């Protein structure tokens, strides 16, 4: 029992390390590659479904189906992340935001009728007018990322609230970090 939970824990830590490694190395181009690799896989499943007698092929199809479902679950889990954080006075997307943003992009590209509002926010430091513009820059960075990954302009709306809607109250670096954000709101 004890060793079991230890193994689980180890596996969790390892996968965490792997993920962390992937995330910090991933770039816009890599995530695009991910989408490209998705399409041939689907085609392969469709082609093999024409020969149901072959048990071998059937098992492969099932495995492919399971892999696809697992991938979908993973994508859905990634889309749970709706808030993306930024450094002070910066509107560059952080590397750890890319995997979840790519999942949103894929989902939106596959569902062109869906629309989102990208809400840009800042921490309370600095001036309100500048923060309105900075919040927009942040939301537009996210919008560009989504567009590069296949989302159409018509699906995106950008609204900046500047420093007017703090997610976290208080004058600490931790609170400020939570307030420098873009929130993706599905309509």
């Amino acid at each position, binding site marked *: 029992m004890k060793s079991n939970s230890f193994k689980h824990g180890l596996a969790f830590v390892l996968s965490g390390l792997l993920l962390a490694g992937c995330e910090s190395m991933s770039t816009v181009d890599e995530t695009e590659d991910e989408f490209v690799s998705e399409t041939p896989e689907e085609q392969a499943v469709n082609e093999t479904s024409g020969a149901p007698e072959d048990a071998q092929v059937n098992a492969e199809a099932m495995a492919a189906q399971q892999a696809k479902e697992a991938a979908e679950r993973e994508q859905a889990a990634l889309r749970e992340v709706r808030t993306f954080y930024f450094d002070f006075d910066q509107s560059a997307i952080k590397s750890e935001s890319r995997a979840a943003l790519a999942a949103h992009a894929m989902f939106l590209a596959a569902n062109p009728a869906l629309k989102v509002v990208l809400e840009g926010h800042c921490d309370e430091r600095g001036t309100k*007018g500048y923060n309105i513009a900075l919040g927009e820059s942040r939301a537009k960075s996210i919008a560009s990322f989504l567009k590069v990954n296949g989302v159409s302009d018509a699906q995106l709306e950008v609204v900046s609230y500047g420093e007017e809607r703090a997610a976290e109250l208080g004058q600490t670096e931790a609170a400020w970090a939570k307030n420098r954000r873009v929130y993706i709101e599905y309509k």
Partner: protein
Amino acid sequence: MNNRVVYFLLAMLAYSPVFAELTIEITKGSDSALPISIVPFANRSGQPMPEQIARVVSNDLQRSGDFDVLPTSKMLSLPNSSSQIHYRDWRLLGQNYVLVGEVALDVPTGNYKVTYELVDVYQQKRIVGEVLSANAKGLRKLSHRISDRVYEAVTGVRGAFSTRIAYVTSKRLTKNKTEYRLQVSDSDGQNSFTLFKSHEPMLSPAWSNDAQHLAYVSFHSGRPAIYIQHIKSGQQRKVTGFRGINSSPMWSPDDSKLLMTLSKDGNAEIYSFDLASSSLTRLTNHYGIDTEASWSPDGQRVVFTSNRGGGNPQIYQMSIRDLVPERISFEGRYNARPRYSRDGKSIYYVHQAGGGFHIASMDTETLENVILTSTPLDESPSLSPNGRMIIYSTKLKGKGVLAVVSVDGGAKYFLPSDHGDVKEPAWSPFLN
């Protein structure tokens, strides 16, 4: 005796301002303050006094930082007219000026008739005096007028006590619901009233130069838009509601145009909006952020915030003729939201230093600058119409409050509120 106390209390209740939202806490007086005595005015009206004129005047002059008001308890006598003044008493107390006065009843109208005189102790002569009248509700206004006259007689600068301030309050009702209000009050925070209320953010109130209108940004439609509201009637007009940013409205000196920031053409750029024709003129063109523009008093220059020179906000100035921006702030990584002084020779702005954001001033010719405040989150400086004081917003024990500092940094006071956070102050022009 007891009866009189009760009568007085009742009168206080009846006439006390409905909603005294902001109170005043003086934190720092000026070293060069002039000694002045404001003697309590004799009440010969036969009616209770809803406002103690001498108290209102004392508070006005004390918080200006230019005067050091003698407490009544230290006075050797309580004269009510210049003829009753024993100059030796006041010289002994080291006083330069004495204000005396009395209140009588103006029988035909039932109004209060107020007589006041300001005397110069060393010259032993009266330097200003008037007879004014007001009803009970007007006594406070009358008191501010006396403060204005005293201030001008002594300093040579017009007093700005009879002016107003506009500001935004926000109060969290629940985790997801905040009430925002655009408020207008007297310059001492009294007699406040709500101009506009919403559950969405409001910011950047700006007074028209005729003091009749406020321009501001409101999100109440769900998207930011610029509005103009007539203060007396409450009538509201939507000026712009373009896709993207609609922010930082600022009136031209003749009130015919608004400077504003719009991002409809791609990113934050500065435009001039002509109010009569509703036509837009674009003033900046850069992929960086351009915002928070303000007109010079002569209407010839515009000063604004831009991050065009390396990504962090700095202050730029341009002539309205050639529209070529020239950077004027070089110290520090963050300089923003500039406003010209009344003579257009300097600007007041927000400057980051040592991790904090402070109000600073800069000479637009020599570029010499001075940091005026020391609290960590100071912003939104707005100059009093006589150019002597700057009202700004800051944080005090985690709460947004308004603060005022003299332009030389000498005197300072806070205007804390018991009603949530207060921010975005804008000092009105002279009202008449």
